[in-house]
């Protein structure tokens, strides 16, 4: 049995398809929907209902996670507008941007040898967070102008930032483990 969730994530959350969303609204709607769909509500139901509930709750979780993470939300809006990111085939980026990336990468690589590695990583993390905020603003602007090529460029650069953020985090975890 397949669950027919042909509607998009935004409709599930009673929102128009737009980048700016209220996290409070997402949280509230998520909880109220899960109160009715979650497998715990079907523990005493028939097997078919239980299977359905697992699928339905999975869909809602996926939707919530997508809309709650700004970069995932942005990519999702692109895909709803028929724009693909072509991550593997299209590797062209502006030289300026690539230069910045290399510098950041070097800084991350040097951080463990700094006198205070945590402080060094915090500084990079703050810089990355500024970059993420800028990306979100730029995307929001481009999307509301329906300039999808610009929006796509923003998301592709933003992906690099997210990758660096996770590198910083795993480096922190490695430092923790060594304590």
């Amino acid at each position: 049995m397949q669950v027919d969730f042909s509607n998009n994530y935004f409709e599930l959350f009673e929102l128009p398809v737009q980048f700016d969303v209220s996290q409070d609204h997402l949280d509230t709607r998520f909880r109220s929907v899960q109160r009715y769909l979650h497998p715990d509500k079907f523990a005493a139901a028939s097997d078919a209902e239980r299977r359905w509930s697992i699928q339905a709750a999975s869909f809602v979780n996926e939707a919530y996670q997508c809309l709650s993470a700004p970069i995932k939300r942005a990519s999702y809006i692109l895909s709803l507008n028929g724009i693909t990111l072509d991550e593997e085939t299209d590797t062209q980026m502006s030289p300026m941007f690539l230069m910045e990336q290399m510098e950041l990468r070097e800084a991350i690589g040097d951080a463990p040898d700094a006198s205070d590695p945590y402080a060094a990583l915090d500084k990079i993390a703050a810089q990355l967070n500024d970059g993420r905020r800028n990306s979100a603003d730029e995307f929001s602007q481009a999307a509301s102008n329906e300039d999808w090529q610009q929006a796509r460029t923003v998301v592709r650069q933003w992906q690099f930032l997210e990758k660096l953020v996770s590198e910083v985090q795993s480096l922190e975890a490695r430092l923790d483990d060594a304590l």
Partner: protein
Amino acid sequence: MALLQISEPGQSQAPHQRRLAVGIDLGTTNSLVASVISGSASVLKDEHEQWTIPSVVHYSTNHEPLVGKSAQEKAASDPFNTIRSAKRLMGKGANDVQQSWLADHYQFDLETGSIPAFKTVVGNKSAIEVSADILSKLRATAEQTLGGDLVGAVITVPAYFDDAQRQATKDAAALSGIHVLRLLNEPTAAAVAYGLDSGTDGVVAIYDLGGGTFDISLLKMQRGVFEVLATAGNTALGGDDFDNAIADWMRTRAGLEQMPDQSSHRQLLRLARSVKEQLSSQDKTSYALNLSDEINISGEISVADVNAIIEPLLKNTLAPCRQVLRDAGIAKTDVKAVVMVGGSTRVPLVRTMVSEFFDQPVLTDIDPDQVVAIGAAVQANVLAGNKTDDDLLLLDVIPLSLGLETMGGLVEKIIPRNTTIPIARAQEFTTYKDGQTAMALHVVQGERELVSDCRSLANFELRDIPARVAGACRIQVLFQVDADGLLSVSALEKESGVLASIDVKPSYGLSDGEIEQMLKASMEHASEDVQKRALAEQKVEGRRVVEAISSALEADGDTHLSVDERTDIDALIETLLEKLEQDNGDAIKQAIEKLEAGSSLFVERRMNASVKQLMAGQEIEELERTLVSSDASRET
């Protein structure tokens, strides 16, 4: 007509009767069973008036397995046949056993290709079978106290248990004849007990250090919704390790390289444990173990000594604490309360270190040994369908990332850790050779980049792929993690819509066939009338199905079904009801299967209608009537 009868109060399935369900804390050292009795959850006592049952099983050719205190008493005289800490080996392979201290204490059968087993006088016993014996004891205790058959149990597991360890726990329950309503993470269970008690809203840290496992979880509590934000831990660290370290210290002080035999080692461990417990409330104590002139272990030990011994072990719990904060994106100052769970948090140094780490006093006012079982009992009561005032919803996460092996032994993550469950992720694959009809996938769990550093969960083989030119087949593989945190995999060829069949070879654990075999073997040896038990289980299940489907029919059967369709389902219910009056387990099972199959279309229509309403932004109260009507009709 039949339908009216069955929804009538006091008829066949007695809708107003409370369904007996329990919460089970299956611990490394001790196990507990709890239930909600007249509105409040409490731990049940066994025939010796004890509420903690040592997780120890003694096997003998003379009698049925002994469980608990009576088994523990055999530990010194018959060490190899007295199995404790079996939980440490749940879902583990031969390599894990060799690295565990258990390898020094027991004789193992580590034959490759099968799961590791303790060698006992009654044959090989896997950790799953040992756990099943403990669960049987808990089940018997509960059924005796509550006076009836259980409809099911919520069994708690360490949050950091991987898929293999969870599956092993579920297998043990199946062997002991317990229907698992849900596997619940121990810290989440503790949070339920704590949260309902205090009515706290906000982020809470649950620090859970038991006999053999450590977990740290961050939960956000908000009006009855318990949302796990992040979890981390170590499934091979606990109070047992403290005992071992203290025992080693005492032995070394006495100038001994090692203990002469298992029995004396056990005695030393017991001494170490009692020393540890005494030093929770006093500054120093003396100890003595006089086995012979050569083996005389005695002296004084202070809190400072113990602290120095266990501090390195305890430090290992702080990295996971940092990790959950980072994963959840939460600062220490955002944590509203730190709750201590597990017997090992009685050790004063544990409390001091955790309190210093989170920069706030820790909460120890709820009994750290009972809190997990209590929380599980509350959840079991809700899941069994007994309506309560607590509008409770638990949203848990997967503790470790799930990934697939790719070229060069690297891991590609499919579902990252701390993703809220249930969750499904699809991944597309294509054939790389002309005429290729099969494909192998290797699923692993863990955070590292190399396959060899992660836990191998299973090897899947996709078969029956239509033979085409390379790249023409697109196979979508769906990874579904259910609310118990267990993975299942299905595959679909996208062009033809053909379902590729999947052969699963679990890396550690039992295949369905092996479970069946064990069940059969246990039935042949069991003294109780297993046929009778199987029949009783079928009857409980049969009544559950009749009730679930009848109440759905009553709610909106006429909306979704034609007169003919309705008549067919009614007839299937009627047949099942007739079989329930007779004593033929197989016939009941068949009637259940027929009813499930015959009503699946109705269920599907009904569910999809609910989703449409949900999508259309229907009023929530309206939805409640449609979706949970099956609950409403059995409300007392």
